[in-house]
């Protein structure tokens, strides 16, 4: 168990150590594109910074956090040490090397292509290589999660896999499906071109492959938060999980519906027909379903807790909840942001309606609300829940943790809501500088300034997070507090095989993927759409980079 704990702790520390500088970059980016004076106001620095911010937040923080969380959940929910610890450490080192490579390439100015890559813009092969090591390396973790679950099932025949373990394995499987797109793009298109092995890039194909990743990756980020909702929150609130079965079903639905829907990120792209776009828009509606189910299940679980704590009447259970618990507070704040972000998502996926907001600040606002808000705030809560368990040192302190969560919530709301509005007004995203003397842009000025204030609050909150974690880490070891998961109202004694494993769901997803992506990817073998690449760091030698 010691080794499993150390494994989790190292992953968490990498995640949060990357998190803080990435928040600093984010706050500065908001400043440079505002009407306010900004230090180092150089557009090149902005684009490099956006690349670094996105790479850090989307790939590094999330992957390391999910991996650490996975090891912790495996050890605690199965009640035995993680199997394959050596492989886990190798995975850790590979991912760390990949991170350093990618970060170095961006800092050197050779990779300002943003974390979504945007071929035919071409970055240095160090950047793609780093991304490949990080994402590809995390596949070792995927295998380890599946291995730990199946070996436990073998040792405990007929027993239901604990919901937490079932869910983290679902996360791993989802990540494997999600990462397949970007890994194929990296290995098949970007790395060969950046190494000079090929001369051209199929931008349409590359975008299509990336879209396989682009939506599902958000659910990969989201899953630890949902696992906390289902397995940690009811316990922290002092209640019971309303339905174990619904929890399993929710995670299964996430696997099935979060991958074959990525084309809603390509609604505005010219390389796909409207019919294929509608298919995936249709499927995207169903990815809202598990979240809508979760909202009810979580409310019901909280109601049980609130009523047990003396809450009376229709809504009296809400004030009766232990809001002083970071996990409970974070969930409340998270659900508010999830509601707003989910609302934005329902707009984005609405087929033609996507045209209203595509690539405007609305989109930035949407995924900051979902990921930067609803998900990350649960990462904080998980960290606060886990740190005392892993280190045996008490949290320093709970009051500070509450401040930190509230500040993060306030900062994200103040930053994101004005973005939604400027997006509707037509503000393009990822722009280094706006000309506020233009009347069209000037109207957005006050809103942009408000969101800068939100960014500053987020920065304060991120610093506070690190302060809390460091102080807790430096405290004295005096706790023996094993992690306990929430008990369902009716703890499962047996569950059908379909809800105790993933074979059926993987088969279904494969069919759906062929249906949704078979033609869109296959068409590029017929279309003549290869184009030259454009190296962002300039020609590697003379004559146009050749």
């Amino acid at each position, binding site marked *: 168990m010691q080794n499993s704990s150390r494994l989790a702790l190292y992953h968490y520390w990498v995640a949060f150590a990357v998190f803080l500088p990435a928040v600093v970059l984010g706050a500065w980016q908001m400043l440079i594109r505002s009407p306010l004076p900004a230090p180092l106001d150089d557009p090149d620095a902005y684009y490099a910074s956006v690349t670094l911010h996105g790479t850090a937040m989307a790939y590094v923080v999330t992957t390391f956090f999910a991996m650490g969380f996975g090891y912790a959940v495996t050890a605690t929910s199965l009640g035995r040490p993680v199997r394959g610890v050596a492989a886990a450490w190798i995975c850790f080192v590979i991912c760390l090397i990949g991170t350093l490579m990618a970060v170095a390439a961006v800092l050197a100015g050779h990779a300002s292509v943003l974390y979504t890559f945007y071929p035919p813009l071409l970055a240095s092969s160090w950047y793609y290589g780093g991304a490949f090591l990080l994402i590809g390396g995390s596949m070792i973790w995927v295998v380890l999660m599946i291995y730990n679950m199946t070996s436990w099932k073998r040792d405990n025949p007929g027993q239901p896999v604990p919901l937490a373990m079932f869910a983290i394995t679902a996360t791993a499987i989802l990540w494997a499906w999600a990462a397949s797109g970007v890994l194929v793009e990296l290995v098949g298109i970007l790395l060969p071109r950046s190494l000079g092995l090929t001369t051209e890039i199929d931008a349409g194909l590359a975008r299509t492959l990336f879209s396989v990743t682009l939506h599902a990756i958000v659910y990969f980020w989201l899953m630890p938060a949902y696992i906390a909702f289902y397995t940690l929150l009811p316990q922290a609130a*002092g209640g019971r999980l*309303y339905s174990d079965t619904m929890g399993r079903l929710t995670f299964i639905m996430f696997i099935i519906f979060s991958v074959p829907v990525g084309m809603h990120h390509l609604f505005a792209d010219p390389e796909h027909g409207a019919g294929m776009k509608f298919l995936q828009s249709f499927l995207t509606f169903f990815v809202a379903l598990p979240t809508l189910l979760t909202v009810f299940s979580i409310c019901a679980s909280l109601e049980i807790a609130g009523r047990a704590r003396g809450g009376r009447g229709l809504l009296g259970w809400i004030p009766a909840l*232990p809001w002083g618990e970071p996990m*409970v507070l974070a969930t409340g704040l998270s659900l508010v942001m999830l509601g707003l972000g989910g609302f934005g998502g329902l707009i984005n996926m609405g087929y033609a309606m996507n045209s209203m907001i595509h690539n405007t600040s609305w989109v930035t606002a949407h995924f900051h609300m979902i990921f930067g808000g609803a998900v990350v705030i649960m990462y904080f809560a998980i960290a606060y829940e886990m740190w005392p368990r892993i280190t045996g040192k*008490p949290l320093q302190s709970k009051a500070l943790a509450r401040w930190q969560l509230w500040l993060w919530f306030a900062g994200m709301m103040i930053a994101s809501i004005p973005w939604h509005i400027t997006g509707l007004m037509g503000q393009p995203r990822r722009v280094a500088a706006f000309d506020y003397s233009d009347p069209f842009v000037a109207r957005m000025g006050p809103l942009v300034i408000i969101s800068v204030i939100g960014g500053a609050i987020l920065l304060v909150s991120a610093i506070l997070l690190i302060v809390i974690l460091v102080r807790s880490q430096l405290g004295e070891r005096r706790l023996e507090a094993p992690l306990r998961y929430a008990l369902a*109202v009716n703890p499962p004694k047996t569950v059908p095989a379909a809800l105790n494993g993933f074979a059926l769901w993987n088969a279904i997803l494969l069919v759906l993927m062929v249906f949704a992506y078979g033609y869109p990817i296959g068409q590029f073998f017929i279309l003549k759409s290869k184009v030259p690449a454009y190296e962002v760091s300039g020609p590697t030698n003379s004559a146009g980079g050749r």
Partner: protein
Amino acid sequence: MATDEFHHSAAARPEHVAAPIGSEEAVAALRNGPVGALVVASIAVALLFLGWLAFYFLLFIPRGSVG
């Protein structure tokens, strides 16, 4: 799977820990079904739904037809 232990959470002292729920409380809480949860979740979904319709017909459609 046992609950016959004190509940632990991110707290330093036992008095900061939420009390665990017992069988009787759970039964009592669920006697009428999770009505409060249904109300809260329904209001949230209704707002989402009405907001979506408002955006569709008051913002998106007036901005003109494209295809």
